[in-house]
């Protein structure tokens, strides 16, 4: 019984949040990795692309809420999501036409691209703050919980409750669908195959008649979709704040690099590795420990390895360890 309680407490405070957070990071890291493998640079504007997509989704959500449209127990934001994706696609294609294409034609060095993406980041950040303001926005509505802690306790008769938020459920389901669709697209469709060919060997791909501008366009469309979905899921789960999205860059980059930049599977694995380490290291283990350990050994303190304020330090430490020992990441990404 004690062990069961410990297990439930562990799942409730570490397992469920980490799976949801990991899915969000994985979708974000997939976007970074795609830009990296096709366009060959680290996109610093990714966090702000997420913020932009989320912002549009929030605005459409408010419009729907005002018009009395709702999605039953599910959050209205899911209905607004396609609109957010469409607008973000437009913005991303626009930046590619006006900004990145010039440097592609010049065959600029990757570091120039990174710097240009900094400029784009600046502008998107300003745009988002200009439209919606720098403050916190909560836009989740509908049913809050799939299982609430009290229902769970009543059902099982355990002392510990297990709560699963709707947003967490949606995150995991969406992540599975998105990842399945993405892999189907990359592996089965003609466009997806041409994208992979282009990313593996640009010259050979050009020789076999692949139109590079088309490949780039599809990449941006997919990246915009992934960024918006990741942003909206994160926003539903926590809340939307432009600066937080900018800060998400670090764990997202860490996920992509840990898994291996350029490798989609690596991005997913990396997302979960980062999320689980972040949550387990900053979680106060006292509750779980008191159930597992005999009474005499019960801990006095919180048994927290690091305070939650250091969650960035965790992703950073993992990043450094990977850079030191295996710079290409777990799944052998490429290193240009």
């Amino acid at each position, binding site marked *: 019984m004690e062990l069961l309680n410990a297990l439930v407490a562990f799942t409730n405070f570490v397992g469920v949040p980490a799976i949801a957070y990991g899915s969000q990071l994985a979708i974000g890291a997939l976007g970074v990795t795609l830009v990296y493998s096709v366009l060959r640079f680290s996109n610093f504007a990714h966090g702000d692309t997420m913020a932009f997509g989320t912002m549009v989704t929030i605005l459409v959500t408010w419009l729907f809420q005002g018009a009395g449209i709702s999605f039953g127990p599910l959050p209205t934001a899911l209905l607004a999501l396609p609109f957010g994706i469409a607008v973000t696609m437009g913005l991303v294609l626009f930046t590619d036409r006006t900004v990145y294409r010039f440097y592609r034609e010049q065959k600029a*060095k990757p570091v120039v691209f990174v710097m240009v993406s900094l400029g784009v980041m600046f502008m998107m950040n*300003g745009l988002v703050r200009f439209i919606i303001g720098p403050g916190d926005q909560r836009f989740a509505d509908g049913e809050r919980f799939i299982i609430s802690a009290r229902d769970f306790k009543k059902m099982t008769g355990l002392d510990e409750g297990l709560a699963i938020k709707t947003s967490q459920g949606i995150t995991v389901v969406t992540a599975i669908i998105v990842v399945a669709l993405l892999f189907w697209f990359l592996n089965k469709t003609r466009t997806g195959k041409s994208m992979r060919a282009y990313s593996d060997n640009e010259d050979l791909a050009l020789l076999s008649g692949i139109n590079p501008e088309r490949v780039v366009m599809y990449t941006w469309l997919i990246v915009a979709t992934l960024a918006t979905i990741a942003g909206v899921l994160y926003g539903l789960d926590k809340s939307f704040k432009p600066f937080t999205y900018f800060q998400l860059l670090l764990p997202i980059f860490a996920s992509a690099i840990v898994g291996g930049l350029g490798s989609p599977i690596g991005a997913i694995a990396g997302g979960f590795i980062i999320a689980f380490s972040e949550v387990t290291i900053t979680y106060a283990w006292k509750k779980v420990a008191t159930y597992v350990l005999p009474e005499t050994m019960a801990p006095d303190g919180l048994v927290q390895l690091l305070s939650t304020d250091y969650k960035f*330090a965790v992703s950073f430490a993992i990043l450094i360890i990977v850079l030191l020992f295996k710079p290409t990441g777990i799944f052998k990404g490429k290193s240009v």
Partner: protein
Amino acid sequence: MSDTVKHSLLFAFVGLLILMEGATSFAGIFSGSWNSALVILNMGLISAIMALGVNLQWGFAGLFNVGIMGFTALGGLAVVLVSTSPTPGAFAAGGMGILMALVMGALTVVGAVAIYKFMKPGIARTLVLLAVLIAGFFIYRAIFDPSVEAVEAINPALEGNLGGLGLPVLLAWPAGGLLAAGAAWLIGKTALGLRSDYLAIATLGIAEIIISVLKNEDWLSRGVKNVVGLPRPVPYEVDLQNDPSFVERAATFGLDPVEGSTIFVKLGYSILFTVVLLALLWMAQMALKSPWGRMMRAIRDNEVAAEAMGKDVTRRHLQIFVLGSAICGLAGAMMTTLDSQLTPGTYNPLRFTFLIWVMVIVGGSGNNFGAVLGGMLIWFFWIKVEPMGIELIELLTTFMADDNWLKAHLIENASHMRLLTMGLILLLVLRFSPRGLIPEK
């Protein structure tokens, strides 16, 4: 028009902008206050120094550092550690313990590195490594936690930190440089020699972590409670106002004591900062012209060729990365001295990292004078874009009713035009004039 004339004119233009800020209140953009002009000048000088440091890294060596904020903040921390007076009793209560814990932590890491180097790869090594790390961590926490608690319990409303050494504040400036150099060495050691983006991501990370350490380690920097009233290298306004000879002298310039004293203090800072800036500029110019500078640029332009000539690219990169970061740390210490407070909550990467990048790119990467010009010019615009943006929006929305929600919203958010404008400037310069205002020769 020769280049020298053109570049002198650019500097004269920046000087003119600052003079106009002091002298006129034209079009609602300039404030017509000499105090405000000097505030802009002082931060402009500090920005120019930061830009010099970044130019060293990017312009000389092509290293992409997006952790400037972190090095700046370390400089700020140095001011607290060097110049504040030690908190009475703090060292006896927990200072020793904290130091011992930190030494213990360092020993653990050194031990782990040694084990990794000297033991044969295999399961045995992994197990020993893990055991050392875990044991080290628990010993570290066991010494560290109670000591921190003891220190933070001392007069938490005002102190609650270790305090500093009580040395003159000017000594804190080089100390800030040293602290930043140490952090840069650690980062450079891991991320240099890998692909260029990795350094960017690693520096982005270290900056965030330095800020979170400053925000959370109250025993060190009082965290978000801020350290205020740091000692100053210049006299206090109040003392000047009570000094009859100063009041008399101010009157000869036609200034009342309050305005005279504030301007006098700010001018004092300006002179100090100018001296530092000129010294650094001179050193950077000498370095650029020396064989070392030529080697750096050769490495930047073609790493493979430089390596073939027998240059150790990674080591040279590490060297210049540490140097550039040290300059940023120095500038950070100067900034904290100017504010006479350390407020870890206000460090924001957009302002402290990316703005400096805009300065370097706009000024002209690879040219020290360009970096200085960019620093001063962009700082002026950073301050002034806000009033300009509000003016512009009011102009654009004059046809709207005053209670129009869109108008209210636009005016309320006009201050965020800053980021948009800076991004736009960066993109335009990168696209149409990538060599900047004063290009590299």
